[in-house]
């Protein structure tokens, strides 16, 4: 299976509030709130860690979900955010220097 790498776009504003993450696209002002699972993936989206490793390391042990369910949810989440340009997706690792997560 080809690895998937995800990185946060630099064209976003983001902040954690009460366990959820607010994310706004500065390009089109689309506003999202990410629940705790999605927030965990978002925080770990460093562009160099494969998505399956993020799910295995940050989602399955923390949120009591099966690997299959976690993988399905993660893919859906990644697809939705990438549609809005908020999350960048590639089959190759990204160069460093994506914004710090907060």
């Amino acid at each position, binding site marked *: 299976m080809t690895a998937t790498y995800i990185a946060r776009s630099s064209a*976003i*504003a983001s*902040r954690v509030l009460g366990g*959820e993450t607010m994310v706004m696209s500065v390009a089109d002002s689309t506003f999202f*709130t990410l629940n705790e699972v999605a927030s965990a993936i978002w925080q770990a989206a460093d562009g160099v860690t494969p998505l399956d490793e993020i799910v295995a390391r940050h989602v399955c042990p923390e949120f009591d979900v099966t690997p299959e369910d976690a993988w399905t949810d993660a893919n859906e989440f990644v697809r939705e955010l990438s549609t809005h340009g908020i999350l960048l997706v590639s089959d190759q690792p990204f160069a460093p220097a994506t914004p*710090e997560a907060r």
Partner: protein
Amino acid sequence: MSLLHEMNEKALTYGVPLSVHIDVTYRCNERCGHCYLDHDDHGEMTTVEIKKILDQLAAAGTFFLTLSGGEVFLRRDFLELVAYARKLLFNVKVKTNAVMIREFEAQELRRLGVEQVQISIYSHRAEVHDGITRLPGSLAKSIRAIRFLKEQRIKVTIANVLMKDNFEDYKGTQALAAELGVHYTLDPTVTPKMDGDRSVLGLRVLGDSLPTVFHDESLVGDVAAYCAPPPAPGEDILDGYPCSAGHTSCYITPYAEVFPCVQFPIVCGNLREEKFEDVWRNAPQFHEVRGIRARDLTTCSGCGHVGTCSRCPGLAYMEGDMRGPSTADCEKSFYRTGIPSENMRRLGLSAPLPAGLVQIASAPA
């Protein structure tokens, strides 16, 4: 309930300053007669001081950051400050007269990821706009800047303060905004100067002209709903907060003072002496503001408009009592609905007195 509203509710629950407005300077290249600021530098914050405050705001959970002035581009470090704010992932809005924005500045604002730029335009006619700003050529320069920003696909809003001098031009300014492809907002609020000088209130548009604006569908949308008599306020309204100032938002001056809002000049602390979190959590002034519910308002709690009025606690404070009415908003509620406010009834008025002459502080309680 929208996502943004949900996050506001959450910020209120957790006591998070979700929105912060920083004036990075009071210096300005325009001299608008209605401006509430002086234009001198009494020792504004350095680049390092502002960056430290931005660090503290990010840690406190602030998401929406408005950078304003004065004219922000009079600070040579302004783009450096924007870059730093964006690195901290704030949603950044810039308020400017745009006179100094050329192609390079527009490109930089785009590259840095500024979400929105709000530009003050008072008329589509240079003789009126430049007459208000007292800067010849300012309208042409501001319009040129809007075009540069639009080329960069930055969201731009034209903000027009409605006054006697430009009342006849608000539709023309709205048409200019449409022609430029930008948003348009109109606000008839002229506030006293920060030092308490109320002479600028004479510039306010006369109240009996306001119905024209309030019945303009292109500005307010559904006129019937907007101008409808207010529903009787329920317990939820009376238990509610008058506005977000001090609850989920605050204002920081170029001298590091913290106020509940730019229109609410009660100093809650100074960030040259204290950390933001300490001021936000512990300042007695913030506690006092946060303790006020609609039912605590001396006159407004008994007013039918209490649930729908745009009452500003800062303007009320400048009139002498943060729990009292803000006259300009009583006037707006009256001219919007035709129903006198409780404040007007107590004063025995069927219509507001001319702007600047109403003395609410001396009214019987």
